[in-house]
Each structure stands twice: as C-alpha cells, then as structure tokens.
C-alpha cells in the first residue's frame, strides 16, 4: 500500500510534518505522509507545548512564530479537533532588580512589533501568579505566548489532512530518497517505494541521514531536552513562566510541566537525575509551594538543532523537488503552522512569505 504513487510525500509525523501534510492537502495537493512509528513520537511528543513569540528577536524567527500564533488562533475550529491551544500569555520573571534594567526597553520593543507587553512590579507579578516566590523583583508580561497539547496538534493536523484526501501511513519508515537528473523521484520505505514529484523532509533530527541519500548536506544535530510532569494540582500557574531555567507551565489537566535545557549529547533520550533535580530545585526556587507536589514521570526528546539555530525551510540545493522543513530546535510547536503553510505555498510555486528566504537550505551550500 505504500507502493502507490503520490504527488507529494511528507516524511515525518511530528508537528511540522503533519502541518505540512494538512496545508498541502487543504490546498488540493495529493499528499502521502509517512511516519516510522506513531504521530508525535519524537521531539513533537517530548516538549512542554510552549508556543513562544516574545522571546524571538525581530526578524524572520519572530515572523515565523508570529504567523504561527495567528494560525493557532482559529486552528481548533479549522481542524475540528481539540488541540488545547491556550493563549495564556507569559511572565518573564526577574529575580533581582538589577536584572530588570532592560525590561522597559524590551516591553517597548515587543509593543512596537504589535504585541501587548507590560513590565510588572513585584506586587502585580504576584497578584497574577500568587505561587511565585515573594522575593521576585518583577516580570515582563506578554499576551501572545501560549501553549498546546503536542500530541493533539499532530493528530489534529493528521486527521484534518485525511479529510482533505491525504494518506497517512504510520509505522512506515522512509529509508532513502531517490533522485534522477537532479530531481527527486521516489521515497523508499520499509513497506515499498513511493514514486513522487516532491518530498517534504520533516524528520527532525533524523533528516540529515535521509538528505544524505541524495547527496544533500543538512547541518542538523540532535539536542536533548529533558522534562518532568507532576500529579495534578489546583489551578495555580496561569501563564508560561520563564526567564529562569526551567520553564514552568500548568496543563489544563492540572499537571505542572517543568523543563528543559538543551544538551548536546547525540541521539540519547535518557533522563538523568542530576538534570531533573536541577529542574526541581529551580522550580521550587521560583515557586516554593511546589515542594510537596509529586513527580509522576520524566522524559526527554531530541530537538533538531540546525548549525545556526535557524530552521531550514525550502527547496534543497541541487535536488529539485526536495523540500526541507526541519531544524526548528526548541520551536517546533511554536513554528509548525507557519512552516506548513509556507511549504504548501512553496510547493505550489507561489511563495508568499517575505521572511521565507531567511530559512533557505541553500545558505549552507
């Protein structure tokens, strides 16, 4: 069944791959998505579901996140799937008055880019988040940051893609690409060969190995992120809490999600007590009332870290029809929608996003 032809094959069932499949299928393209295990099995299933716009400097990374936030606004209705998008806003917490020196300028910069942002003093910060340590100096609030349930996002996109006629082949591993005369011609999978006119390579940290089968070098390496989740507690954290490792958010289920810092340890998804203990200490330092909350589980995922920490989105140099959508590092969730929309535009030959060229794979050639 994997042997049928397709106009476009998307490799990877994470947030980026499913988003690409959805926007392509919605635009009328004949799409097949292949995923070697289940949807959201790697980095897209091992993250806090943070969608951060306010931490991006002005420029293409910001535009990619901003456009994604815009697409997220109506996504649950559009997909007819409850992806648990919540535009909760964020608090960048400052633990000392010295650290707040640049806060007003930062808030003004965010406002100049169309976001709402305000610098809050200690009392106002603690009124918004009473769980925070009484000694925090203040915070920077921003409206546009939010959260998502990562698995629901992948499944929501995939199901909507199916409704638009896409094929979604899980437990189907792409093992190689084939090209002839500088053009991609097929994807080889463990369940057969799919002849195709275009390939979207959205396999995260596993993308370089596939790109190499047609001679394309993608400088992406895995970057581990560990995290932990607690038992549900009463609603006590309303915003994404950042500015201080680790990040903390509360899920709609009441669980606290705590993580993560990037670690360059290769393809290693183990969790390690010293790192988790550091997260626990950091979270309690920020919110002393968390001490008695039990941890249920820890896990880790491998973020695709591009050499320059900028996503790689666009047609690969030297192989026509091979489109890369990978290397989103810590921002896969927050940038998947606009990446998918941009890829759909690119493949249809009408790139409509002025910021897209900053992500061109040709920059490494």
């Amino acid at each position, binding site marked *: 069944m994997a042997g049928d032809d397709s106009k476009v094959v998307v490799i990877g069932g994470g947030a980026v791959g499913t988003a690409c499949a959805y926007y392509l299928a919605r635009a009328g393209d004949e799409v097949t998505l292949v995923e070697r*295990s*289940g949807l959201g099995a790697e980095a897209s299933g091992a993250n806090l579901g943070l969608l951060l716009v306010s931490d991006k400097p002005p420029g293409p990374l910001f535009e990619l996140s901003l456009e994604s936030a815009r697409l997220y606004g109506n996504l649950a209705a559009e997909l007819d799937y409850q992806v648990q998008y919540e535009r909760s806003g964020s608090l960048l917490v400052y633990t000392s008055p010295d650290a707040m020196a640049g806060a007003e300028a930062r808030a003004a910069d965010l406002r100049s880019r169309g976001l709402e942002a305000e610098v809050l003093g200690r009392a106002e910060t603690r009124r918004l988040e009473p769980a925070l340590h009484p000694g925090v100096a203040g915070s920077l609030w921003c409206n546009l940051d939010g959260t998502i349930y990562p698995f629901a996002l992948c499944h929501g996109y995939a199901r909507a893609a199916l409704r638009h006629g896409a094929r979604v082949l*899980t437990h189907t591993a792409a093992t190689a690409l084939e090209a002839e005369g500088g053009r991609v011609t097929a994807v080889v999978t463990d369940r057969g060969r799919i002849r195709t006119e275009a390939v979207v390579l959205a396999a995260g940290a596993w993308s370089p190995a596939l790109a190499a089968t047609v001679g394309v070098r993608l400088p992406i390496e895995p970057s581990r992120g560990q995290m932990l989740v607690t038992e549900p507690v009463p609603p006590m954290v309303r915003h994404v809490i950042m500015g201080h490792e680790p990040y903390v958010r509360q899920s709609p289920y009441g669980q606290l999600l705590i993580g993560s810092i990037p670690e360059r340890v290769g393809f290693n998804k183990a969790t390690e007590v010293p790192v988790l*203990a550091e997260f*626990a200490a950091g979270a309690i330092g920020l919110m002393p009332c968390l001490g008695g909350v*039990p941890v*249920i589980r820890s896990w880790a995922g491998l973020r695709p870290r591009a050499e320059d920490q900028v996503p790689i989105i666009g047609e690969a140099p030297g192989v026509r029809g091979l489109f890369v959508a990978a290397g989103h590092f810590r921002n896969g969730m927050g940038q998947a929608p606009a990446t998918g929309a941009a890829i759909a535009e690119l493949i249809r030959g009408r790139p409509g996003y002025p910021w897209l060229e900053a992500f061109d794979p040709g920059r490494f050639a």
Partner: protein
Amino acid sequence: MAEDSTRDSTICRCEDVTASAIAAALAAGARSPTEIKVLTRAGMGACQGRVCRYLVEALVAEATGLPPEALVPASYRPPVRLVRLDELARQHGEHAGKEG
C-alpha cells in the same frame, strides 16, 4: 476481552480511560500501545501503567491481529514511584556536592 459487555470497563483507572475510548483510538488508526497512550492518556497517571499496560497491549493485539509479544511496549519512564519535587531537589544538592 472481546465481549461487548466489557466495552465500557475502565482500563486505565488513573486517567479514567474506558475500553470504548481505546477502541475508538484503535478505530482511528492507532496500532501500538504508545499511540493508545498518547491518544487516550491511558498509562500516563500516577501508577505509570502498572494496572493498564497489559490490558492495553491485549486490546491492541486483538485489534491488530498481532501477538502481544510482537508489540513494541510503551516506554517505562522514571521515576519508578511518585517522588516529591523537594525530595528530587535534594538530589541536586547531593550531586552538586559529589561533583564539587
């Protein structure tokens, strides 16, 4: 396992996941215990799947026609038991001390 009368049985008691919810996930294309876990949350609660793991595997096996031992089991995630954040944080001090 296959009798209709069991379909509304609670499979995962921590997360209140019923057999019919798992059947719905299987009907939606899930083919592995991990996919059942992420779609329904079965096995994500305090007991970490100790109660439901084998039941989920049996339901997946039944739906896919694969023997349970041929399935890739859902991951085992540390900690083995619930650990309070402050207990975990104390490990931070201990490890830091050892390294220093």
